[in-house]
């Protein structure tokens, strides 16, 4: 059997546990920063998208469609290699990854916010205005808190998607698990061992996040049912 020719070297994995762990931490940090950008920028874009003025609404719509239509992989290269060449804007791989991930995420997050804001009935805003709250107060104290709750489950899905997207950033040389796997495998010829461990690590994290999302959603559904 051909497979017998492959010499399994799990000791190489063991020797690189520290590197794999810190690589995973890099991916998680990148995901967190990207999600942070997506949450903030996405809200601004969503509010513009819901504006009655076409001057605000149309650019927001364009932003959303553009960033959702371009693959993250392409956008990442554009940010990392393209900006440096065209505008002399040299970003670190981490920064380029965070920007690409965060902006792409913000387009999806904007749509999540938009759906959530529309899901809060107009009666809520009216009741707030009727008692004398300013439109800004009505948004901040009444509409937004309710919308955020609606946005949690799809937001968790986006977080998982961004984590998967963050693994891509190793192609521009960020020192995550996959970068390490490539380097170590070249030196020791252990691609199977290294990629298997790195792959299972990612699956473990995303499945855990998905489980958390499931529990969260079920808890919120129960609260709603008790209404």
């Amino acid at each position, binding site marked *: 059997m051909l497979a017998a020719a492959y010499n399994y070297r799990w000791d190489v994995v063991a020797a690189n546990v520290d590197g794999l762990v810190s690589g995973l931490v890099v991916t998680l940090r990148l995901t967190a920063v990207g999600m942070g950008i997506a949450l903030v920028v996405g809200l601004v874009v969503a509010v513009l998208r819901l504006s009655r003025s076409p001057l605000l609404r149309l650019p927001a719509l364009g932003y959303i469609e553009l960033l959702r*239509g371009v*693959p993250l992989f392409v956008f990442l290269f554009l940010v990392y290699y393209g900006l440096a060449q*065209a505008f002399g804007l040299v970003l670190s791989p981490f920064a380029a990854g965070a920007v690409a991930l965060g902006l792409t995420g913000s387009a999806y997050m904007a749509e999540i916010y938009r759906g959530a804001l529309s899901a809060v009935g107009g009666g809520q805003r009216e009741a707030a205005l009727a008692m004398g709250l300013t439109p800004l107060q009505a948004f901040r104290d009444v509409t937004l808190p309710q919308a955020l709750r609606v946005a949690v489950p799809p937001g968790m899905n986006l977080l998982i998607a961004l984590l998967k997207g963050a693994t891509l950033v190793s192609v521009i040389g960020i020192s995550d698990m996959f970068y390490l796997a490539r380097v170590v495998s070249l030196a020791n010829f252990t691609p199977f061992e290294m*990629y298997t461990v790195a792959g299972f690590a*990612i*699956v473990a994290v995303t499945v855990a996040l998905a489980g958390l999302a499931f529990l969260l959603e079920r808890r919120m559904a129960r609260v709603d049912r008790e209404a």
Partner: protein
Amino acid sequence: MAPLDFRPVWQNLGVLLAGARLGATVAVAGFGLAIVAGLIIALLRRSRIAPLRWLAFAYVQFFRGIALYVLILWLYFGIAVAAGITLGALTAGILTLALLNSAYLAEVFRSGIEAVDRGQREAALAMGLTPRQAFRDVVAPQALRVVVPATGNHFVDAIKDSAILSVIAVPELMRQATSLAQVTARPFEFYTAAAVLYLVVVVCVSSGLRWLERRLDYTRGLPWSRGTAVADTTPTH
């Protein structure tokens, strides 16, 4: 910092377009396999035999949990090498897209079947339709309306995901853009061109899908068909 120059892009447009065509072909092939596999997994998820259900569940969880980039490295550089299989880049790319999307589609199909009220099938059988007819004329059209939008979203994601196949040197659009960007030292121009081409394909496919959704929507024009729930379009890959 040299001024932007898009002439190299125009000169190589043919190569880029050929890459786009190959990428689309790979996406269609992978997605076609995924539809078949996804249907099977969805049925296994509802099987009466518990171990089959568990197996299908594990399959779905695993492939929904893994990133395409991770899976492709693992499959192409890890598993194939360890197993001593010579896997062509194109085959590996199609296989990866198929595995990943089959897991997503299995969930889509399952929820589509479950979305149709049990009473619908019973009513159809009660009026004398055969189980086959009940499925084809009553259950399927209703399930399809639920399934098509989500399936379409995954197909669009699959097209965008085909860009990642460039890491194993499948000569699709992104791979061609990368080599040309290096050769001409014009990454901004070539990656912009790639972005525009992907955008064009995605917008065309999305509009086609929206047309299809409208055609399948038998509630179209009925007063209560407006303002239905917002589809979750979050990327899942």
